[in-house]
């Protein structure tokens, strides 16, 4: 690194802008309803650097899911743009992996078949990706479950399968929409630990949507705070807790301060209605 010429240092401002994997630029979404237009998102502006784990936290009705639908290309924005790797998102993209709140597995496919769904859809070749699938399944603790069917697995295991499916085609970014929201508290903590472990191993860029402040602080490098009606960004908090984080970190005073700061933002807004 000592041989890097000074010219590069001068360009570092631009270089860091180019390293933004996701750039959401003054984005708004207005839905036309029978009772008139409803602003779901207003002037959303933020970016995510490559390799960063960003959590988006907000109460239900703050437009988190709308934002996710725009980022996956399922819904167009009303104003502004969202860019992924520099190109505007105008439709479904093959370099995105999505994990939904429910596992959304196909019961007629085996675990391996479900994981290889993106390979089938995008003609990536099952043969090459089967090895990757086996590795990833082992990483999430599902080695030997390849030939099982989804209905033979617990809820937590199903969501792990969904995570592997989202990673199988090596997407640039992993979008997670309250992925552990339907799990019980104990399983949820385990899944948080596991997600961190996977992230530390792969350093995939992650946008993690949740309504749990604690979960957001525990997992993320940065927590983006959204408030509802219309959905707006109120705060962007860098979480500087050392990794790997264990569950004990949740009882530390530093963790508590982050949680309080974020909660205070909501309360300043007039309390949560959700």
């Amino acid at each position: 690194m000592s041989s890097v010429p000074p010219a590069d240092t001068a360009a570092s401002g631009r270089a860091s802008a180019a390293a933004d994997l996701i750039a959401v630029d003054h984005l708004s979404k207005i839905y036309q309803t029978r009772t008139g237009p409803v602003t779901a998102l207003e002037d959303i502006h933020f970016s995510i650097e490559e390799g960063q784990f960003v959590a988006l936290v907000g109460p239900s009705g703050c437009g988190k899911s709308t934002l996710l639908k725009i980022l996956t290309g399922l819904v167009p924005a009303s104003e502004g743009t969202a860019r992924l790797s520099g190109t505007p998102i105008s439709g479904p993209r093959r370099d995105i992996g999505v994990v939904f709140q429910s596992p959304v597995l196909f019961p007629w496919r085996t675990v391996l078949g479900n994981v290889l769904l993106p390979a089938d859809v995008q003609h990536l070749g099952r043969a090459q990706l089967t090895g990757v699938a086996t590795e990833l399944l082992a990483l999430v603790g599902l080695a030997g479950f390849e030939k099982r069917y989804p209905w033979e697995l617990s809820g937590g295991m199903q969501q792990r399968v969904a995570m592997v499916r989202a990673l199988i085609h090596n997407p640039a970014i992993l979008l997670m929409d309250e992925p552990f929201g339907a799990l019980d508290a104990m399983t949820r903590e385990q899944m948080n630990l596991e997600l961190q472990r996977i992230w530390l191993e792969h350093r995939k860029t992650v946008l993690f949507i949740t309504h749990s402040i604690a979960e957001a602080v525990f997992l993320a490098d940065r927590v983006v705070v959204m408030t509802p009606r219309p959905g707006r960004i109120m705060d962007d908090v860098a979480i500087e807790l050392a990794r790997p984080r264990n569950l004990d970190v949740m009882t530390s005073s530093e963790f508590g301060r982050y949680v309080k700061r974020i909660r205070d933002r909501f309360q300043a807004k007039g309390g949560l209605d959700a």
Partner: protein
Amino acid sequence: MMRPPQFLLRLLLVLAILAVWEGAVRLFGIPAFILPAPSSVLVALWRGIASALYVDHLRITLAETLLGFVFGSILALALGTLIALSRRMEYFLYPFIVMFQSMPKVALAPLIIVWFGLGLTSKVAQAAVTAFFPLMVNTIAGLRSADEDRVALMRSLDASELQILTMLRVPTAMPFIMAGFEIAMVLSLIGAIVAEFVGAQKGLGVLIMSMTFTMDVAGQFSVLLILSVLGLLLNWVIVAIRKRLLFWDPAQKIATTTPAERGTI
């Protein structure tokens, strides 16, 4: 599986009913051309089997039923898919199809005989027409029943509409379609028999008609017995295929009765 005591009870019940029937016919001297005793039905059945009376008729009726089922199913699946996938097709076709459905298909039998003659074709046409509608309705409902989240997943993967159809909608529709097949098979048999009543040279329906003219009621009962066994076997085949194909469907695990059990209900 049923536990043996229950099975024995059921067998006992059947035997008891047959015994009461037999006793009543003998006791009250009911003439055989009104209600034959079970024993004389069995004798008629045995005589028919021994003289190979049923074989040709059974073969014809079975062929009509199966061909009618196949053609009716092809039509139902094709039209159902078209209507499920295209709102425009639904708008133009559905009124005609509903109108057609509210008409009793057996009423078409004389017309179908006029159009297609006394041979096999008219029976196949009648069976197909009779079997067609429920399967088509099930196909439409099935293809439209795909879960929103699963569709969103497919779209997020940049799947084409064709891929969403083949990888998601068709598998989702399979429980509906298999249920439609079950109904269609029964209706095909009904269609074939009705068409045979109206005009045919061979078939179990023809046999029943000719036995009516000779007042051979015991013989008629024996043919009815053969027809219900035939219906049961055809249903059995469909159920076996359904169970193999839909191993993943939780609804299948609830309906674990064997076809024979369902048949006797």
